[in-house]
């Protein structure tokens, strides 16, 4: 690998990471603004024009909060777990293709950090590691509420991970590849048209995987205070918070890549289309949060195992039969 290639790869990684963090910061703003308007409030207004500097103010505030390690906590794991969650969420974005390529001084630069043969599986592997962060956070902070939140989170994520995995198999069958760029290339017609049920299951499971409402039981504030991160303060709390939004962005990007045609679209450049699709998904996430009440725990488990799981399996069978009949 030449020095130039290494430089380009490094630059891409840094730029994507910084952009992801910016998107995370501004999706907190978006969430507060959209939720505000949906509940007939204004949302943040004071800091900057339309509250646009609010995420930065929040960040500075969190930096200067007192950093607490609870007595009786398992210190090593207590500090490690927010890192695990954040790293897993950020590293997943590496395999998502943002666009085709751009020409910079005659160099073709492909708009993705890494084009991996098993891209989709890579994201799933990282998300199965991020469960550890949440469970360990709950366990290590030596608090009953946190432990309950952590246990709930892990049970929920383990159950819904299966249905997520099964829901995208239909897409993989159509594309014939696990490589995200191949999947995007195969979408002359968006896969949401060919796989509407797969998309539905994927989106529902995505809500559960991100611990978003109506599946936000791990942090049900009425029963558990805020669940697994109740004992965290300052930047450690902020890492969990940022990881939640980063996870949302990754899942939205994955949905856009797998079902909504990725960067492809007419007239506008690819990256614009991609961002539009991602933020449409993010808006949908927030919209759902403003609309639906939280599930009860047994309902959540029953729904996952007795509805989503069999339907996802059936979807695979039907897709297979369809592919045999119609080529």
């Amino acid at each position: 690998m030449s020095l130039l290639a290494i430089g380009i790869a490094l630059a891409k990684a840094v730029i994507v990471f910084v952009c992801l963090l910016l998107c995370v910061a501004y999706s907190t703003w978006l969430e507060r603004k959209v939720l505000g308007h949906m509940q007939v409030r204004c949302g943040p207004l004071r800091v900057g024009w339309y509250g646009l500097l609010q995420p930065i103010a929040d960040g500075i505030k969190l930096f200067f909060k007192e950093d607490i390690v609870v007595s009786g906590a398992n210190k090593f794991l207590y500090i490690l777990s927010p890192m695990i969650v954040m790293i897993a969420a950020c590293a997943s974005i590496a395999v998502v293709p943002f666009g085709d390529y751009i020409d910079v001084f005659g160099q073709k630069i492909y708009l993705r950090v890494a084009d991996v043969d098993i891209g989709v599986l890579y994201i799933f592997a990282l998300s199965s590691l991020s469960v550890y962060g949440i469970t360990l956070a709950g366990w290590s902070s030596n608090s009953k509420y946190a432990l309950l939140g952590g246990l709930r989170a892990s049970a929920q994520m383990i159950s819904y991970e299966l249905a997520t995995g099964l829901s995208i198999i239909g897409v993989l069958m159509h594309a014939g590849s696990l490589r995200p760029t191949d999947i995007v290339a195969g979408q002359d017609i968006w896969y949401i048209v060919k796989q509407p049920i797969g998309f539905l299951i994927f989106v529902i499971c995505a809500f559960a995987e991100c611990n978003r409402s109506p599946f936000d039981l791990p942090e049900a504030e009425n029963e558990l205070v805020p669940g697994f991160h109740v004992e965290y303060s300052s930047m450690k709390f902020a890492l969990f918070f940022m990881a939640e939004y980063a996870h949302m962005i990754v899942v939205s990007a994955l949905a856009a890549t797998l079902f909504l045609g990725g960067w492809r679209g007419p007239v506008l450049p690819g990256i614009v289309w991609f961002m539009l699709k991602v933020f449409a998904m993010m808006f949908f996430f927030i919209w759902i949060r403003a609309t639906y009440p939280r599930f009860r725990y047994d309902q959540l488990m029953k729904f996952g195992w007795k509805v989503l799981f069999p339907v996802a399996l059936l979807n695979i069978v039907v897709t297979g039969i369809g592919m045999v009949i119609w080529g």
Partner: protein
Amino acid sequence: MEQQLFWLWGGIAVISAVMMILKRNPVHSALCLVVVFVSLALLYVLLGAEFLAAVQVIVYAGAIMVLFLFVIMLLNLETEVRSQGLSRVAFKACSLAGTGLLLLLLLGGGAVKALRAMAPEQVSGVPGNTQAVAELLFTKYLLPFEVTSILLLAAIVGALVLAGKRD
């Protein structure tokens, strides 16, 4: 570069495997097991078997998560964590086993060299290693593959029967 990475991850795998056995706290042991499996996955990446690596993390990380939950929910941790160190006998046994392992490694070095010489050719014939694995599983090793799946199904049914008997 590949050599150094191999020694790094191999070393981490071996050290955390030993730590898994030596740790008193079952939660720490479970975590060390995760580290072992992740570093094994990284070794697979070095060998160019990315599919295996990803599956390794997905399957084992998920499986150990369940183990981990069992530890938290079923064991009373306070009684499990004993304060005394390794007993003499255990220490002797460990050092014996360690020496044996080291000898085995040295002897195995030759075999590894032979294996390394032959590995890349076998993979390079097919476009990607997902396809390679799939092709082998569904043609040459179809019968063992199906038998394994039936075995797993039997295990699931058995677990359900055992769990259902209580009430």
